[in-house]
């Protein structure tokens, strides 16, 4: 069936395809989100080399296989499409065999062979066969795994304990790793190391009380506003580990984080309440890895990010969100009112976005995480 083109003015440009996450709904380990924010590529980390690709980026851990979907935005559904790699020492096309033709759902698989500094590859979609004209390109980034050790602390406040258990946290960190693994970052959680912490004399039983918002009674705009947080994150931190403290409740947040630029005695660490879903714990870990900002807090004159891209990112907050008046914004691919898990690969100019490039910052911090 022919696609309709109506030429107005003096010309018509046709871009046949784009790329998208292979699945919808919850995060799946082998289907990373695709950073398709614009066709410009933005700034690049020092070891990322150069690329002539203009299109989407995707990150994959070295040795992994990941699925990506081709969207036939402006080409027939039946057009035979093939996928090839420009450098098979970096990345290969694992499926379909021979690179195509792609199945009706447009999904293909990439195998991340090796993370080379300053050596880039492009995934090219071709029309007709594996030597046909290139009609679209994707830039994959392959990342060697950095393992980060994590210790969980199960906190009791004034006699009320978190409902989480050491055993249940195994699944939590598995879900977190589903989000983080494509960035080449894996959190190693050993439930046998889990510690129990008891606090008394806090304001509310079971609750970490903070007064960071100026509307909270008792707010002083000083460190006293997060005194209970500071007490918690300084309780028996295990050296050379990321310390995550789980509490039953927190009055202002799902989670709160100081990264390791905050030296002790003020300290660094993460506190998560029981209503923080796995995605929210992964979000706090992103804060810990040198990403202090939230997407929507990047303010251009008079504007906050409330768009579909912002809601798809792990560093959007809150999660879940209140329904938007713009209906299509209420499901950005992860389910109704549910934040996505995109860790931005692109680092677009600050005039576009002041907080993206999260993956590169996290990778740098993961070299010196504790």
């Amino acid at each position, binding site marked *: *069936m*022919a*696609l*309709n*083109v*109506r*030429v*107005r*003015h*003096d*010309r*018509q*440009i*046709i*871009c*046949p395809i*784009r790329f998208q996450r292979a699945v919808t709904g919850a995060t799946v380990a082998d289907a990373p989100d695709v950073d398709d*924010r*614009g*066709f*410009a590529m933005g700034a690049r980390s020092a070891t990322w080399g150069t690329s*002539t690709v*203009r*299109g989407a980026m995707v990150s994959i851990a070295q040795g992994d296989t990941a699925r990506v979907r081709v969207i036939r*935005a*402006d*080409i*027939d559904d*039946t*057009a*035979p499409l093939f996928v090839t790699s420009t450098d098979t020492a970096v990345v290969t096309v694992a499926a379909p065999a021979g690179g195509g033709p792609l199945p009706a759902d447009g999904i293909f698989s990439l195998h991340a062979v090796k993370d080379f500094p300053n050596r880039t590859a492009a995934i090219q979609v071709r*029309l*007709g*066969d594996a030597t*046909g*004209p*290139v*009609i*679209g*390109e994707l830039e994959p980034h392959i990342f060697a795994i950095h393992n980060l050790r994590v210790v969980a602390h199960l906190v009791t406040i004034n006699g009320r304990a978190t409902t989480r258990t050491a055993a249940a946290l195994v699944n939590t960190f598995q879900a977190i790793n589903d989000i983080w693994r494509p960035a080449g970052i894996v959190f190693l959680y050993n439930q046998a190391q889990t510690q129990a912490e008891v606090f008394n004399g806090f304001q509310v039983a079971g609750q970490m009380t903070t007064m960071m918002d100026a509307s909270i009674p008792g707010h002083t705009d000083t460190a006293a506003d997060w005194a209970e947080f500071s007490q918690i994150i300084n309780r028996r931190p295990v050296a050379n580990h990321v310390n995550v403290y789980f509490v039953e409740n927190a009055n202002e947040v799902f989670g709160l984080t100081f990264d390791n630029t905050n030296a002790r005695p003020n300290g660094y660490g993460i506190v998560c309440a029981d209503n923080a879903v796995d995605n929210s714990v992964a979000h706090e870990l992103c804060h810990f890895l040198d990403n202090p900002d939230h997407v929507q807090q990047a303010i*251009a004159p008079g*504007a*906050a*990010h*409330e*768009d*579909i*891209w912002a809601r798809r990112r792990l560093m959007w907050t809150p999660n879940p969100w209140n329904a938007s008046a*713009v209906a*299509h*914004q209420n499901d950005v691919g992860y389910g109704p009112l549910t934040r996505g898990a995109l860790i931005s690969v692109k680092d*677009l*100019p600050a*005039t*576009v*976005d002041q907080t993206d490039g999260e993956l590169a910052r996290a990778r740098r911090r993961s070299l010196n995480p504790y």
Partner: protein
Amino acid sequence: MSNGEETSAATIARQAINSLLRNVLNSRVVPILFHRSPGNDNGGDRAIAGLHWQVRAQGFVIQTGVTGNDGRVAMVVRGASSTLELLHNGAVVASYDVRVSTATLDAVGTLIGQKQRLRLLGYQIGHGGPDGNGVDATVNMETERSMLDFQADESLYDDAVVTATMQARLTARAGT
């Protein structure tokens, strides 16, 4: 104002022998540019070269060719529409029903005018609307994504809000 190549029209008149009657056939040549990414720079290194194509009108193939380094097809649209077909090993693998409008673009301050310009530049706004090319008065996921794409590509703040600056940039890239 236009911002690049102009469409051109040709009127072919055929006068029958010993008759005062004339048959008039209207043809128009329009540039279609295939790119791997949107934007009005005549393709550059993102143009899709090597596409084998043919144009079919009223049941007959009237043009054939292969795109060069600019990804351009100077397509003849005969009558109301012609069909641009992409070929692989001589078989048709994709086709586009191409019509031409001589109307000017709607005002850039209107949603229709904005979507016309995004579509012209190759941004992927879907296939809704009366012409099946995505140009209508609806803001949906594809509309918002295309606006964000344009903003990111133009180094504008990417919030999908169409500011005066974005309107000016759309006009600069796609025409008034």
